[in-house]
């Protein structure tokens, strides 16, 4: 099977702080990877390094065999806050990645329209962000990343600002969209059940220094529905991952209070 993303001996320091230490990882094409861990474990930093938004201090990230040196159109980033441009319509926001690449022809417009339909925003193309709900804005955020047809989708806690019900709906929507194209995905989240529900593999991070503690393969059948969250197998995965990070989370909570 083709290896999509290869991370070797990756390290990152911010001054004295060792944010990431010796991360090694291989991701296959079409794999859905979730990253969980306590606050300050470096999972978002890791994602930003893969995106090229942050330089690594040591080690290397390669995508399709090419070393990552900066941001590029082969990676689509879905931000935690939607970061939509308020003066642009939904359509104009979704197509901006294509614009940056300098290619906006009829084919790109057509493709963007199809993506907006895929994320459930058909008929909303000419709305402005302020007219949309939080869930809809995150759909535009997702469509914008998909519109450049990236090799890999990098998602940084994209549903964390949504209410619990909307979040569950967005999880199933993301599964539906993902089944459609089977992009390779790295998905950072705080929520263990979200990670287990979505991923083929959950990477559990530890903190101080930020490092990879365990890689948990999720062998739940696909396509998955929300009902799977109530099965014993699902709960076992969640319990297992929770035990892996529990002490770290308690430590980080105490630190934040002080």
């Amino acid at each position, binding site marked *: 099977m083709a290896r999509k993303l290869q991370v070797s001996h990756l390290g990152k320091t911010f001054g004295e702080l060792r944010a990431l230490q010796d991360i090694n990882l291989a991701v296959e094409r079409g794999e859905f990877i979730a990253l969980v861990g306590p606050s300050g474990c470096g999972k978002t930093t890791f994602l930003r390094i893969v995106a090229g938004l942050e330089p690594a201090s040591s080690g290397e990230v390669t995508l399709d065999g090419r070393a990552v040196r900066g941001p590029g159109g082969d990676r689509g*980033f879905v931000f935690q806050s939607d*970061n939509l*441009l*308020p003066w642009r319509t939904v359509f104009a926001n979704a197509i901006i*990645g294509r614009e940056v690449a300098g290619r906006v022809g009829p084919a790109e417009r057509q493709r963007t329209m199809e993506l907006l339909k895929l994320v459930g925003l058909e008929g909303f193309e000419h709305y402005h*962000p302020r007219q949309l*709900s939080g*869930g809809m804005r995150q759909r535009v955020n997702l469509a914008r990343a998909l519109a450049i047809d990236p090799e890999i989708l990098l998602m940084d806690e994209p549903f964390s600002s949504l209410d619990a019900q909307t979040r569950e709906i967005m999880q199933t929507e993301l599964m539906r969209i993902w089944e459609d194209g089977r992009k390779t995905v790295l998905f950072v989240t705080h929520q263990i059940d979200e990670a287990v529900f979505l991923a083929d593999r959950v990477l559990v991070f530890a903190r101080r220094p930020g490092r990879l503690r365990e890689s948990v393969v999720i062998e739940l059948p696909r396509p998955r529905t929300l009902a799977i969250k109530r099965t014993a197998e699902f709960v076992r995965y969640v319990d297992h991952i929770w035990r892996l990070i529990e002490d770290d989370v308690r430590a980080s909570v105490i630190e934040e209070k002080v």
Partner: protein
Amino acid sequence: MSGGEGQVVQGGVQPRPAAGMRLPRLYLAGVVSVLGGLLLWEVVSRFLVANALFLAAPSQIFTAIAALAKSGELWRHMSISGIEFALGYAIASVLGVVIGFAMAESATMKRVLQPWISGLYATPTIALAPLFILWLGIGIWSKVLVVIFLVLFPVTINTEAGLRTTSERLIEMLRSFGATPRQIFFKVSLPSAVPFILAGLKLGIGRGLIGVVVAELFGSRAGLGRLIAQAADAFNMPELFAGVVVLAVAGITLTAGFGWLENRLVPWTKD
């Protein structure tokens, strides 16, 4: 999946209340307040002061305006002041935006210009009007220069601030697609600075109008400031107030027009 679609439809756009229906009520209190104030003014000046040397009643002011309009005097003064304001305002707007851009783009430029901009913004440069008249004569250009001095700095400062305070998150979003600095400037920084630039231009309207009139008071052949000065010399209070009222109406109209323009150009800043 179907639940998701339902969410889109339900969580979608709420229809806005029909704005036109509520407007009269919204304005009712304001209209009553203004009419009441005018009535009070009329009564006070007619029965309490009762001396046209000290206060003119609204009815007398209105009569004076009508007379000035009929004789053609009003248009002459208005057009001179209007030209002075328009020239100064246009030059200052273009110059202010250009300097603001330069300061936002180059740190050196900012360090060099900042003390002058801040200093001159805080200085009541209108006091230099007599000097400008000495330099440029009592024609329109001395007034144009005063207007430039008053309008330039708020526009410059706002342009620079607008470009500087562009949301880091939006810049990063564009950067994630591999955007060049040039693309970031035109697709994010510039559009997000537009509301700031418009606010600076709006601030400039009032300052510019004051500049025109005060500069004309110091020395001029025509203009609304001239009209006011003549009326004051002749103790013609209705005519003095006529000039002031015309100016007030011009200021209100221009500012309201600007508000309308803002609603059209940068609607996202409104809610």
